């Protein structure tokens, strides 16, 4: 396949390499902010005295200058995937996080699928029937659902489906049924946004001259829309994907906490509640890295479906590739 040729691999590699400075920046910001308050570190080792305290401090590098700590931490992150030591359990944060990634990823992927499978068709329906009752209903509903905070929607849904109808579990992950409510909550805002964006994109395409030309040639409305308008709208819709994925992934932080799903978001919130320095730093870095990876996947997908941009990006130098992507 030409799509996944060497050029594409080079591009992906370049994007992955470009992640490194951004992650360094993220670590720096979070590190400096957390460093300005000194909770957590040393809090649990006050029982030690004298020489023992000194050696513990030396072992944990407490009291070193912050730049040294930052450089050592970043070095460990990139060479050993070591996100530090959680002082509560004495376990590595990377170890504690590793089992949780799968839940967050699953939620994100299911949420994204729901957004694409529900949001895009509804937006298309809305655009085709512009200013008719279908469009009105969909527009009002999408405005309504984009204004509901995640946890409010979750409270309402749990009240209706778990307590009143008693058909879905209110918390925890046991089987696929448990994913229904979290995914519904997580994707609702994304669906509402996608509907509105898809609607405006399809409307824009319908306004173009080639559609008028097709219509005047006598091609049926169905063929015009399904064969020509949709294909031309697909490209801008996919370019929105990374934006929506970011929203969904950030939504997991709240939804995981609400539904007691053992993912990274829940870990982060628990760490914030416990003021656990290493855990906050580690999970922030993990979430930022996940976001960047999703961003890369979305951009690669965009290149795969859009030959014009692909030729442009893959054949140009690195600097141009960045601005185009």
């Amino acid at each position: 396949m030409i799509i996944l040729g060497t050029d594409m691999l080079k591009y992906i590699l370049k994007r992955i390499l470009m992640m490194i400075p951004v992650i360094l920046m993220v670590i720096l910001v979070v590190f400096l902010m957390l460093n300005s308050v000194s909770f957590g570190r040393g809090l649990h080792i006050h029982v030690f005295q004298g020489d023992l305290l000194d050696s513990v401090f030396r072992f944990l590098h407490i009291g070193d200058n912050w730049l040294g700590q930052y450089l050592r931490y970043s070095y460990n992150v990139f060479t050993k995937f070591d996100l530090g030591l959680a002082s509560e359990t004495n376990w590595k944060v990377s170890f504690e996080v590793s089992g949780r990634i799968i839940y967050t990823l699953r939620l994100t992927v299911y949420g994204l699928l729901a957004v694409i499978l529900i949001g895009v068709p509804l937006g298309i329906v809305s655009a085709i029937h512009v200013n008719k009752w279908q469009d009105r209903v969909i527009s009002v509903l999408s405005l309504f659902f984009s204004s509901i905070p995640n946890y409010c929607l979750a409270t309402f849904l749990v009240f209706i489906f778990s307590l009143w109808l008693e058909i879905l579990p209110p918390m925890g992950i046991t089987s696929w049924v448990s994913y229904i409510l979290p995914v519904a909550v997580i994707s609702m805002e994304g669906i509402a946004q996608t509907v509105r964006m898809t609607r405006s994109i399809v409307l824009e395409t319908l306004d173009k001259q080639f559609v008028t030309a097709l219509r005047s040639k006598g091609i049926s409305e169905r063929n015009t829309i399904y064969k020509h308008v949709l294909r031309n709208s697909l490209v801008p819709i996919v370019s929105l994907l990374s934006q929506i994925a970011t929203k969904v992934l950030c939504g997991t932080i709240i939804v995981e906490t609400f539904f007691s799903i053992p993912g990274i978001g829940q870990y982060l919130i628990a760490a914030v509640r416990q003021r656990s320095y290493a855990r906050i730093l580690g999970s922030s870095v993990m979430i930022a890295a996940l976001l960047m990876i999703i961003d890369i996947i979305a951009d690669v997908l965009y290149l795969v479906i859009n030959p014009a941009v692909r030729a442009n990006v893959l054949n140009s130098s690195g600097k141009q590739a960045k601005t185009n992507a």
Partner: protein
Amino acid sequence: MREQAVWKRKIKQFFRNPLTVIAFLLFVFIVVICLCAPLLAQDNYNAVNVYQGLQPPSAAHFFGTDNLGRDMFSRVLYAGRITLGYSLIATLIAVISGTVLGVISGYFGGTVDAVIMRITEILSAIPYFLLVIVFEIMLGFGQGNFKYAMGVAAAPAIIHMVRAETLSVMSNEFIEAAKALGFSDIVIILRHVLNNILNSLILHTTSTYSDAMLTCSVLGYLGIGFQPPQADWGTLVASGYSALRVNPHLALIPCGLIMICVLSVNLIGNGLRDTLEGDKS
């Protein structure tokens, strides 16, 4: 004279859409009720009376009582003051600092621009919600510091917007003319640049405000915003959630209020957009 006529027409146009009017009235109603909390509250919002816990709504307690017997109606009113007020403060911080930095960055360019843009780029590499949490940790928990955190975290988006708008205004000839006439930079910025970016600034303010309300209540819900016994609507939802089966209204009323507020602010924003942008074309 003519200026006044333009504003009159704009206001008239704004109130022509029934949905916007309803949203506006609802929001004003909720704000007024929350502001009058000391007059309307039936009871001290922090008065614990365990013997009267989890009562259903009645004449003595409009919204019933929570698990510690505190009057829910007063709690909702006082919580509303916090949610609405703190979001407003956060929005003002974000909009004012974002506008100042954005205009400076777009107007002067050069090194200042580069420095401001690098910093905003670094900040926007971190997701908004994560940034709020980290800022809040830095400023300290439980003293309502998250209003500053929300403001600072929302600023980069506004800086970007204002800078882009400023740059597009700067390409106009009247800026060049003003410079040629020898007006000082401050006069040009205040009279010409700000005037021309005002429309998009107003729209961004409403969306920032509704975002801030969401974030404020989410932080309260997660227990990392306000610490008890103070409460905002999110905290009330969280504490009412445990009694969802017995007294569902404890969680559902604050939920509904947040939804109504965010929805009406969004609708007001939509109405403003129609008014302001309809004027342009």
